[in-house]
């Protein structure tokens, strides 16, 4: 990983990172200035500084951490519960045309159903507690992972299979040396997409059926017109999206090192 050639690339990366940090900061500055100039209605869109003050109060009281930890646990539970069967089913569908023929229509038919629309049903079976939120995230995750994993397997160049066959590679080797590495880039793409979707789903689920969590914080703050706290919730979700995507990307770097060369 520490080839000398890498040094030169880093400066571009650093520049990119600076721009990536700079653009949100610039947005905040513009927002604050617009608030000072009263171009924004402070009753509905408080200034970043006011939101920051609200965040400090929520952090000090421990309230923010309570909501954040509840949402994180639900996200983690749902993500694991959705991605593991998602990868398994996706691999099966990619490898067997009969499994694909059986499941593809079902997946295609149920995938477009907005996941939040089935929340009442899920609550009927899994109750009002944590289980129903974890299950709804798992459902949101499983589809994207299935579809991406399946496509990942299907797009592996047939020549790899031919080579493995001509060397009489046993099935276990074929799986670990050809199928998994071949499908991994798309599996990760599926995981990253589903991470974004699960953030959307958890917030909407917490809007309607929770008594804690970031979605609950956003909605209850809006209902009681404590608008600073609503913005704190929204910003926390954005940060959560950025951080989790970053972590997944890092994991991807470790697991699929050859992918960087292509980028």
């Amino acid at each position, binding site marked *: 990983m520490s080839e000398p050639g890498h040094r030169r690339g880093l400066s571009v990366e650093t520049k990119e990172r600076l721009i990536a940090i700079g653009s949100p900061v610039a947005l905040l500055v513009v927002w604050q200035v617009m608030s000072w100039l009263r171009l924004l209605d402070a*009753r509905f869109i408080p200034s970043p500084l006011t939101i920051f003050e609200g965040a400090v109060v929520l952090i000090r009281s421990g309230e923010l951490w309570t909501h954040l930890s509840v949402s994180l646990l639900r996200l983690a539970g749902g993500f694991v519960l959705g991605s593991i069967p998602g990868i398994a089913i996706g691999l099966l569908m990619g490898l067997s045309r009969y499994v694909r023929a059986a499941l593809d229509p079902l997946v295609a038919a149920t995938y477009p159903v907005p996941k939040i629309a089935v929340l009442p049903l899920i609550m009927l079976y899994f109750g*009002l507690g944590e289980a129903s939120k974890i299950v709804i995230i798992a459902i949101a995750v499983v589809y994207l992972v299935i579809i991406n994993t399946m496509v990942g397997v299907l797009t592996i160049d047939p020549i790899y299979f031919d080579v493995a066959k001509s060397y009489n590679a046993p099935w276990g080797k074929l799986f670990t040396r050809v199928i998994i590495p071949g499908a991994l880039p798309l599996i990760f793409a599926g995981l990253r997409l589903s991470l974004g979707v699960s953030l959307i789903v958890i917030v909407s689920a917490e809007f309607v059926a929770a008594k804690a969590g970031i979605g609950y914080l956003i909605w209850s703050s809006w209902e009681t017109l404590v608008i600073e706290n609503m913005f704190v919730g929204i910003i926390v979700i954005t940060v959560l999206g950025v951080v989790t995507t970053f972590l997944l990307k890092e994991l991807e770097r470790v697991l699929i090192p050859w992918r960087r060369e292509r980028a």
Partner: protein
Amino acid sequence: MSALIVVGLALLAVVGPGLGVAAAQEMVKVGDLGIVGDGPIYIGVEKGYFKDRGIAVKLEKFPSAATAMAPLSTGEIHVVGGGISPALFNGVARGMPIKIVAARARDIDANSVDVLMIRADLKDDVRRIGDLKGRRIAVNAAGSPLTYMVARMLESDGLTLKDVELVSMPWPDMGTAFANKAIDAGAIVDPFTAQFEDRKVATLLRRASDVVRNPWFEVSVLLYNAEWAKKSPKVAGDFAVAYLRAARELHDAMYGGKNRAEIVDILTRNTRVKDKALYDRMHWGHIDPNGVVGRESIKEQQEWWVRQGTVTRRVDVDDLVDESFVRYAVEQLGPHRGR
């Protein structure tokens, strides 16, 4: 060509205002929640009381009063019936131009729409409020006036909200939640009370008026956008006259007046309660026929929300309430000897 247009426009300017009655009427946009509390609006529209005062009412549907608060404060709607909620106090404290102008729904003896129901199979286990300790109680929203009611009920038997588990869900969902044993009790309003009793999923434990008395529970009030009322005081005053005229008919009908059948007809057409028979079994919620606002109850509720930390800045309730419009209406209509 352009001369033709000029002549045409001039003609239109001269003839235009006389083209129809509607042009002479002032448009007032009113939030419509589809509940009995909005009765005076429906009655006033159907019987032409607003029209008599030169007002054309445009109804804008909202799923709940809470969602109407922001449009009210931006002037997208001018009038809406709203609950006494933390959103009202917090909104006014942030500078939203909202005034309480008249009474709407109040829980009084024998006319109390807000109730606490318990799951049907708990009838023998939960005989008094104190038996709710450790149980799960549903309210329609955390910042709902009914949360205050539940707290007052719990306090009446030595409990607080900390002794129970409070969950939020819309009223229709509570029926399913009772059936699944997902909740033990729920803060509910008519007509759901009657519906849940019919389905045998829940049974009445207490009505708000059993516990919240002196002053009675002021649940909801009529709200004006203050900027609109200031800019068009004549329209705002005329609106109050028509509103109160219709409110008196609602009042008389709910206490068995001769107009009851007619009013039930109007309510069935406009509210979500479509079953006429239900009106005889459910409470309607008292409406003050002179529009007088229960300030003391509002002050008490604000203090309670402040103690919960949900309201951070107190507002001056006497400043928030502006009864000048209903006073004008009473002058026009004469006082009413209601309850």
